């Protein structure tokens, strides 16, 4: 079973509170920006693989906010140690969602190494996340979301997805000073 990515992200939207920070990367980011544009979307990740580490920095510095990471599977494979770092950092406000499409989607859709075998949930569980689970059915994912986001973090959720509707890839925006300033201003408004 597999979920359309935009359906999975749309299911998440009602559970994202106004004060929550959302860190999103690559196609999940482009989809999210269209589906749920908001000032506390953190899009300036800079280097592939670094979303979870940005999320950790935000979670440490903003303990009164939830930090929701929309990571990519190819990205996570570049920074697997971050799972251990996060699990060891003592953050309870970090929620790590993985769009597991098993390909490098924005770079030509080449398969991940070990695409049909990699167990991301197992990685997070053995790293020490408080919770780690996978969903391939939208109904079950939707049903579980409020419980996941109410549980103490760090929580890891692998969403087994395929591309849904195609949203434009606005690289200029995610790397722009405007995007960073918008986020900074929203964060510091309190």
């Amino acid at each position, binding site marked *: 079973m597999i979920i359309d990515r935009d359906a999975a992200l749309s299911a998440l939207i009602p559970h994202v509170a106004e004060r929550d920070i959302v860190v999103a990367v690559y196609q999940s980011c482009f989809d999210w920006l269209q589906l749920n544009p908001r000032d506390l979307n953190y899009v300036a990740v800079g280097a592939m*693989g670094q979303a979870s580490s*940005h999320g950790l920095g*935000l979670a440490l510095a903003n303990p009164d906010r939830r930090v929701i990471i929309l990571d990519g599977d190819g990205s996570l494979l570049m920074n697997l140690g971050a799972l251990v*770092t996060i699990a060891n950092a003592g953050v309870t406000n970090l929620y790590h969602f993985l769009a597991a499409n098993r390909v490098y989607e924005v770079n030509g859709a080449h398969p991940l190494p070990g695409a049909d075998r990699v167990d991301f949930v197992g990685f997070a569980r053995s790293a020490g996340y408080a919770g780690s689970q996978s969903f391939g059915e939208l109904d079950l994912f939707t049903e579980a979301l409020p419980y996941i986001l109410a549980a103490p973090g760090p929580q890891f959720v692998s969403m087994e997805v395929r591309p849904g509707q195609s949203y434009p890839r606005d690289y200029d925006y995610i*790397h722009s000073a405007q995007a960073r300033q918008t986020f900074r201003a929203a964060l510091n408004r309190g």
Partner: protein
Amino acid sequence: MVSAPNPTPDAPVVAHPSGAHIIARIKEAGIREIVALPDIVTSDGLLWPISNDPEFRLTRICKEDEGVSICGAMSYNGTRALLMMQQTGLMDSLNAIRAIGMDYELPVVMMVGLQGKEPHLRPDQSASYGVRIVGPVLDAMEIQHSLIEEPEDIDHIPQAVATAYAESRPHVFLIGRAPEAS
């Protein structure tokens, strides 16, 4: 790993900076968040004391570029942080520093032990290629850096940190001699 030159018996004895004084300057700079991977140059004099100091929160990382992102993200609400690592980790993190520190103009402040540098020689005089290239690489990337090896070199730490945050750009402190654990 960096090969360390064999110390010659006739190498001059030089003074080393005080780790306690460096830590005091780090605190004076308003830094309470330390993000680190162990580095043998700064282990005894800085990282162990910091790890036992309740005024700091130490986040231990698995790879240095994680720290670039953590410190950069922390800066959005003004939280000051210091990333500690060895120059090998700095070299391994150049793309993250390029993107997050330089392209995004974020104040990522780093303290980097020059493992393999001879204490009595300047970095550009070192027999170690891995040490000699650090300054030129940072210059090529237009990243501000300063050297800490004489005891009095530590005095500029608070101002350099303040400038990095005021101007929202990285700064690298290069530790050329192992700080003493006192």
